[in-house]
């Protein structure tokens, strides 16, 4: 008896929550937007769009976990349960093909697709597309820059107005006994690094990303793959990433880069806002900030344009939402260029729309805004395959720790991932 009542109570509570999620009887329907954690910018945009909608709908944000792979997991599990409460979601581009392929994303009408694709940087558009259709709305596009300390570069006599190579960075770090900031932790950020290295060397991790699971072929076992492995192995094996490398994520890199042994670091533009904030809060010496320099992502092959990492967030509309029409409307509001510009200026996440870069607030907050736009044009997305999770986890499994990466890593990694995709190995 008691059990049944309790269970019924709990069910009733859930039902009540679902009702609230759908708007219930009074007030406009509430759309739930699952956002990746940021400095509160998406909540501000949600607020503004709610006001603009003028009673048509309300947007509420719900924050997802920090790790990109965890975000995917939380959403995929709910969507597999055909959850109607997911109206809008902030999606990391590599996971979009999986969602689109599984039918988790609502279709975007052709007219709207045209409107939201206008002026969008190429990488962001590619990341929002699956099988030649726009399946998500480009929101913001991220890319990594090469950050350096002016004092270090000066002593090494490097000319930073020209692109530099990874080998040059390694040499400087070795000579001056300094730490290079790279993402060596066993997580998505490590895949980002591997992908940029392979792409910059002229290769590609997955050759036919749209193929079914048992026909996918990997391009790792190649000159480009081995070149990427050489650079990673030299940094890891030589201790150039510092003792923290095997657990270093973007934030750990930043704290090393703000310290005494800093030299170079590849990282997203958030490091700029975070450092400015730290100086404003008085927890960091202003001299450190003045010593910051930035340049385009380092090359693997001298003279060959590098392919910086591409990241960011696109807005997807849940296929099982009760209000897909309103959610699509809301998505269009969220990505309005003025919202993107303000989001960049306040949260440090660069816009997908090229128009937003001309905003004076952006230019003011980010002296390197033009470099970011340039980097985005050159950027290479991670493999756009529905099996991205397997590919990425497989890479992390075989390339971690960086100190153990050798000439044979690319081939064994390709074999392993292929076996996982064929259902012959566990992950």
């Amino acid at each position, binding site marked *: 008896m008691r059990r049944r009542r309790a269970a019924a109570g709990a069910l009733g509570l859930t039902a009540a929550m679902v009702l609230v999620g759908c708007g219930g009887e009074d007030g406009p329907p509430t759309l739930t937007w699952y956002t990746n954690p940021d400095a509160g910018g998406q909540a501000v945009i949600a607020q503004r769009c709610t006001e603009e909608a003028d009673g048509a709908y309300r947007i509420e944000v719900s924050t997802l976990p920090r790790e990109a792979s965890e975000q995917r997991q939380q959403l995929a599990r709910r969507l597999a349960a055909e959850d109607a409460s997911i109206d809008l979601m902030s999606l990391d581009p590599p996971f979009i093909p999986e969602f689109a392929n599984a039918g*988790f994303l609502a279709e975007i009408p052709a007219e709207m697709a045209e409107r939201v694709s206008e002026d969008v940087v190429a990488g962001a558009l590619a990341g929002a597309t699956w099988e030649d259709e726009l399946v998500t709305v480009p929101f913001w596009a991220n890319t990594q820059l090469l950050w350096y300390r002016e004092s270090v570069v000066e002593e090494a006599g490097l000319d930073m107005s020209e692109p530099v190579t990874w080998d040059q960075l390694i040499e400087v770090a070795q000579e001056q006994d300094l730490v290079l900031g790279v993402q060596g932790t066993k997580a998505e950020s490590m895949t980002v690094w591997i992908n940029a290295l392979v792409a910059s060397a002229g290769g590609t991790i997955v050759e036919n990303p749209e193929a079914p*699971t048992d026909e996918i072929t990997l391009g790792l076992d190649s000159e480009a793959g081995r070149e990427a492995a050489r650079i990673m192995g030299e940094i890891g094996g030589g201790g150039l990433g510092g003792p923290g490398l*095997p*657990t270093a994520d973007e934030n750990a890199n930043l704290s090393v880069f703000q310290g005494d042994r800093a030299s170079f670091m590849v990282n997203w533009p958030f490091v700029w806002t975070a450092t400015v904030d730290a100086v404003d809060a008085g927890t960091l010496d202003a001299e450190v900030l003045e010593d910051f320099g930035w340049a385009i992502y380092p090359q693997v092959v001298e003279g060959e344009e590098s392919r910086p990492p591409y990241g960011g967030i696109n807005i997807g509309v849940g296929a099982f939402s009760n209000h897909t029409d309103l959610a699509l409307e809301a998505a269009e509001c969220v990505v309005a260029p003025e919202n993107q510009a303000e989001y960049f200026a306040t949260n440090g996440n660069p816009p997908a729309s090229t128009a937003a870069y001309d905003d004076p607030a952006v230019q003011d907050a980010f002296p390197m805004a033009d470099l970011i736009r340039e980097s985005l044009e050159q950027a290479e997305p991670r493999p756009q395959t529905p099996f991205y999770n397997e590919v990425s986890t497989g890479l992390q499994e075989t390339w971690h*720790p960086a100190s153990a990466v050798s000439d044979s890593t690319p081939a064994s990694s390709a074999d392993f991932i292929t076996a996982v995709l064929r259902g012959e190995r*566990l*992950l």
Partner: protein
Amino acid sequence: MSTQITPAAGGRTPQAAADQEEAEVRRGHEAERSDRTRAEARLGWYLAGPAFVVMLAVTAYPILQATFDSLFRFKLTAQDEREFIGLGNYSMILTDPVFWSSMWVTLLITVVTVLVELVLGFALALVMHRAVRQLRGLLRTAILVPYGIITVVSAFAWFYAFDINSGFVNSWFSWVPGIDENLNWFAETGPSLFVIMASEIWKTTPFISLLLLAGLAQVPGDLEEAAEVDGATWWQRLKRVVIPNMKAAIMVAVLFRALDAFRIFDNVFIMTGGANNTQVLSLLAYDQSISRLEIGLGSAISVLLFLCVLLICFAAIKLFKVDLAGARGEG
């Protein structure tokens, strides 16, 4: 995690009581007896039935479902491609080195933590047993704190203490050879497992020590006194009198801790997520079904894990029975 007795020990006393009762009843009227027995049986099942059904519903049903699901290739993001593959998942898992390395890591953690906890728990139990009354409450309260703490909290506490960025262990213990400020505990298998096991041991030793305390209370005091009069040293008394007399309690404690340690998940998940070859079986199952949404594969690992626990349990109960008889013979 839980305090129980084995069925072997559990059945004995009530069975004896029941027998006696039955004998008493037999002396009464036959008709009355059968009526009463029937009523009692009915009432017994009315009372115990709901709990019994719920227990079956929350375990037997899911494990049967898992057994069924494990025969399919079934991924949630590609639900249309579900296909029956018989024992394919099992043969794949059992030939996979990742499964076996997880198995060995899990066993290593189980053996090491249980052994350390047994020694440490015994020491703590002795302290609590011998403590003067004024200290007893304080000591027990302190020891119960790790028991009551959430495992995830314990994992974070140990993780942050050892973490190369936010930790203080490296600077405190830099005088120990091998430890300096550049030691990254979570970069290699050995140190990672060390911290994982330390957290596990810290959190669960109180449980084992309380079970041992209960065992200590059962050791006949006069035996110990006699040994003392005979001039036996403290160590000899411990070895010859105390430990043999509490063998049963030790075995129960070891069995339950071992089965609990075999399921280790929280500490590994929080500290390394399985990096540096610290993958354990529970995490492997989680990765397949929850992260990859490969329901078929995950179910197969779940079933295998269940079989492992059954195996350990049966082996231990057999050993335990022997030991119990042996302990009695000596006493």
